[in-house]
């Protein structure tokens, strides 16, 4: 019986997700200080039905993005600025050029567990400072170019616009079909190194791939 501490076939149990999420949020906070921390939102706050404190999702909101006019070829990360005043100086790649519309785009990211696919799913939405939601066409200009070309190839199966599972609002989602396959590939490399991927590292590994689609990089230290 899977205690939830193992990653089997590239998939997670709901308990495993809670463990992995907390581990991910902790590592992020430690190693990725140029960005705000992820917070855990218990589902009990979002639906009447579940009073189990363990279920929830990760949330990273109000990320300010100003896209550059020239695309840099080597660094495809989003140019991200932090909202909050930090004592540290922002890192080089967050120095920004204002986008053509001269407006700030804000992004919210949620990592939600899919009970159907047994993997995490990334949901995101963009909006401008007035709160008006951004269309996919506008968001595409903020995404790294490789994501955009993938999008163009498969309009319906890569990034889809769907209702957020708990918030009754339209969000964009990265389609989870196929996640387990490439997670299995990632785990196999740790298996050949002689160890099973511990569940605590699941989201870190997952995000190292998925985050790139939306231009969020994670530092290599997080993978240790």
């Amino acid at each position, binding site marked *: 019986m899977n205690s939830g501490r193992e990653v089997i076939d590239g998939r997670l149990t709901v308990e495993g997700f809670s463990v992995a999420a907390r581990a991910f949020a902790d590592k992020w906070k430690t190693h990725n200080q140029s960005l705000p921390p992820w917070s855990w939102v218990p589902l009990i706050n979002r639906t*009447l039905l*579940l*009073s189990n404190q363990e279920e929830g999702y990760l949330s990273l909101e109000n990320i300010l993005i100003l896209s550059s006019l020239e695309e840099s070829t080597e660094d495809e990360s989003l140019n991200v600025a932090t909202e909050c005043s930090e004592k540290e100086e922002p890192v080089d790649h967050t120095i920004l050029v204002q986008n053509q519309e001269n407006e700030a785009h804000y992004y919210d990211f949620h990592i939600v567990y899919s009970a159907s696919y047994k993997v995490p799913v990334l949901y995101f939405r963009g909006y401008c400072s007035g709160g008006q939601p951004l269309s996919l066409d506008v968001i595409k200009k903020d995404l790294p170019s490789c994501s955009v070309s993938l999008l163009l190839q498969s309009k*319906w199966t890569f990034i*889809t616009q769907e209702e957020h599972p708990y918030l*009754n*609002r*339209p969000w964009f989602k990265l389609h989870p*079909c196929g996640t387990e396959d490439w997670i299995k590939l990632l785990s196999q490399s740790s298996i050949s190194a002689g160890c099973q991927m511990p569940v605590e590292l699941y989201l870190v590994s997952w995000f190292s791939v998925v985050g790139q689609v939306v231009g969020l990089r994670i530092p290599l230290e997080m993978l240790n």
Partner: protein
Amino acid sequence: MANEAVKYVWEGAIPLQIHLHKSDVASHPAPPPALVLAPRIGYLPLLIPHIKPYFKDSLPPGEDSIWFDYKGVPLKWYIPTGVLFDLLCAEPERPWNLTIHFRGYPSNILIPCEGEDFVKWNFVNSLKEAQYIINGNCKNVMNMSQSDQEDLWTSVMNGDLDAYTKLSPKLKMATIEDDFSRKASLSSPQSRQGATEMDVAGQVKTARVPVRLYVRSINQDFENLEDVPEIDTWDDISYLNRPFEFLREEGKCFTLRNAIESLLPEFIGDKAQTSGEERSKDDDTEEADGLLREMGEIKLARIQGIEMKLEIPFSWVVNNLMNPEFYLHISVLVKAPQR
């Protein structure tokens, strides 16, 4: 399994009376409402070609972005029409009075629908998800030829059960069965060949069934359905898209009640949380009644418009009442636990 019950489901329809929203009326007098029969397993945007002709002469100039509302609540077009009706009308309203809008799409609440393609892809994505739940992968849907996928969708759009029945075996969906249904099908004169194959291949211990649960929670008890307050917003409804999981065990038969309670364990049933006070086994009946009052209680479960007896074996419910994308949609009215 194209049997009586499945035919009944495919033939189910809801009479709609569609009113043009007054802000879209640019003619005098205002047009009368359109009367349309909506298939339960269909989706509202598919009715637009039948409805638009009634109103096109009354519309103001400009581009259409069509949406529906029921008593001010914008209708989620990606939910099958029959489910919307079962959920939003506690006391069934016939004909069902809806308002159609041609402008002012509430895109902060509803995902866009710009044509039949959107509805089709919503269907295909749900089908993939259902197959993933049942089979453990969605490769059969993915490997279906473009024309087969088209034909499958067309059969659903047209309510053509015969065409659907010819195509759906290509999906190779594992059968959903527990001990009850297995024994039932073994004792029937014609055992389907599919069942035998699955028995060998389906050594899976844990079976998963795609379920979408729509829950309306009411605080007070009520005598009649017409006393149930109306829904103001979708926030009044809790939506759970998660599979029902069970172990295939000898002698085990799950009822509909078992399935619903297992999806809402904290809310209703034996495991429901009561107040923090301790309850000892020696409590007298008054105390026990108090306990019962504190638990949530399923007042009503509707599937395909049928008010279900909760003791019906769940496998029968799934196999006969699921939608064409292999999801079982259940609208539930619950009396909330008193906390």
